[in-house]
């Protein structure tokens, strides 16, 4: 398998993740991601998308192969990568501010207490929650919780933001709103984003590049699609821009085929 080496950031080199039981979730994944781009990974359910994210986060180790970030090998989790989970993962005993503060205090040990708090406030203001920061997670809506999680992930100034189906648990309207919030924030302060999703629209709206996975087990990359660099992007382009429409059809066809194969497997 040929190596594509990006001088900037991010390379998975023939990645394979094998469980101790012998189940191969991912096989021979190679991909390089350019700095400060927005990459979506899309695939049928059970294709190992989340496994891939855990590997990138350093929460799991690949059985074979390596992951490089800025040319350095990933050996474990670290604050150079921020993670956003589908179910927010906010700690219920801390306020919104407390949750972000915990991240800042943990990841940026050089800061004083006051500086950490100031930084946490700043990021909560960025996601529009300056007035709700003393509330506990149970007092926040799903969308607000995920905004706290976004503030928390970005507050440690990661070079990569990993998002694991971040809008999956939200209703359709809140989801659209948050997608646009993420776009706005990302336009404002660029970081490399890897988004795991199963929504075609979401991938089209947000990404520079879409990585299409085949079905698991032993899932692999089926295709890498570069999107036209239309920024800032309006939601309407997905249905109107001919190139987007074409890509959308390709994605739908592939995902439907793969999903059918998964569902009809006995």
């Amino acid at each position, binding site marked *: 398998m040929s190596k594509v080496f990006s001088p900037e950031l991010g390379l998975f080199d023939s990645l394979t993740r094998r469980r101790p039981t012998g189940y191969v979730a991912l096989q021979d994944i190679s991909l390089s991601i350019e700095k400060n781009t927005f990459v979506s990974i899309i695939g049928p359910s059970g294709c190992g998308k989340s496994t891939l994210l855990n590997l990138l986060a350093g929460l799991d180790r690949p059985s074979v192969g390596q992951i490089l970030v800025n040319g350095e090998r990933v050996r474990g*989790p670290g604050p150079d990568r921020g993670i956003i989970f589908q179910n927010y993962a906010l700690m219920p005993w801390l306020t919104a501010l407390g949750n972000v503060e915990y991240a800042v205090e943990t990841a940026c040990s050089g800061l004083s207490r006051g500086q950490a708090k100031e930084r946490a406030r700043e990021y909560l203001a960025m996601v529009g929650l300056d007035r709700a920061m003393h509330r506990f997670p149970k007092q926040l809506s799903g969308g607000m919780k995920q905004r706290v999680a976004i503030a928390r992930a970005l507050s440690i100034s990661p070079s990569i933001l990993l998002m694991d189906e971040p809008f999956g648990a939200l209703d359709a309207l809140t989801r659209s709103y948050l997608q646009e919030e993420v776009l706005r924030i990302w336009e404002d302060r660029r970081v490399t984003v890897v988004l795991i999703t199963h929504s075609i629209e979401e991938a089209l709206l947000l990404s520079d590049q879409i990585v299409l996975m085949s079905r698991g087990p032993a899932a692999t990359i089926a295709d890498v699609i570069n999107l036209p660099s239309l920024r800032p992007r309006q939601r309407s382009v997905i249905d109107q821009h001919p190139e987007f429409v074409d890509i959308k059809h390709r994605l739908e066809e592939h995902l439907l085929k793969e999903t059918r194969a998964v569902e009809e497997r006995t």
Partner: protein
Amino acid sequence: MLENRISRTLAIVISFVSVLVALLVWQILATQGLLGKNFPGSFETLKELAWWLSDPFFDNGPNDLGIGTNLLISLRRVLIGYGLAVLVAVPLGLLVGMSRIAESSVNPFMQLLKPVSPLAWLPIGLFVFRDSEITGIFVIFISSVWPTLINTAFGVTSINPDFLKVSRSLGASQFRTVVKVVLPAVMPNILAGMRISMGTAWLVIVAAEMLLGSGIGYFIWNEWNNLSLPNIFVAIIVIGFAGLMLDQIFGSLQKRFDYQA
């Protein structure tokens, strides 16, 4: 399920009436001699209760202590033994919940000793410590340690794994994760365990003290030797109220640490 809702006032009134009826039935059964000759009625018992409560803290030698004095002796033993048990059970429970090695090492003791009545340890305690006070505390320790330990360990194994992932991904040390994430996450389980432990300890102290020579349990034993049944009922009522108070403390603590509500 018979009624959907009754008002709070009505509930209190019903409870009050229920107690009154029970006292009345008790009085009738006793005066009719249906509970044995000389069995005290509720009126006599309440009169005794009033007398004991009018001066609860007198001290006329070891076999003639006020009911409050005896209660304080028992409470002191429970709080020391229980406190030591919590100090051991919480850290050990965290360890057992987090490490398979610790779990495997503690498990045989937990499985074997949990079902044994703590009173079985009384002779061992007396032999080793040669002191009834320390033996009492020791027995309370044994009785309190398991529920808190088991609940804490269970709490750790049921933590939302995303919390741990968040902490790890931020580069938190193991120690920081335990103190800042695991401990608060497990707090509701710890409190539930501590509540059960307190209940058990309060049950065990009465029985243990019958053999130890002071405290509220010994008071019952002493009044049995005096054949003073009203005083035994007085002790039962006092023990019940004290237990209720202890339980209420944990009830409100649990409410404070219920993150979902």
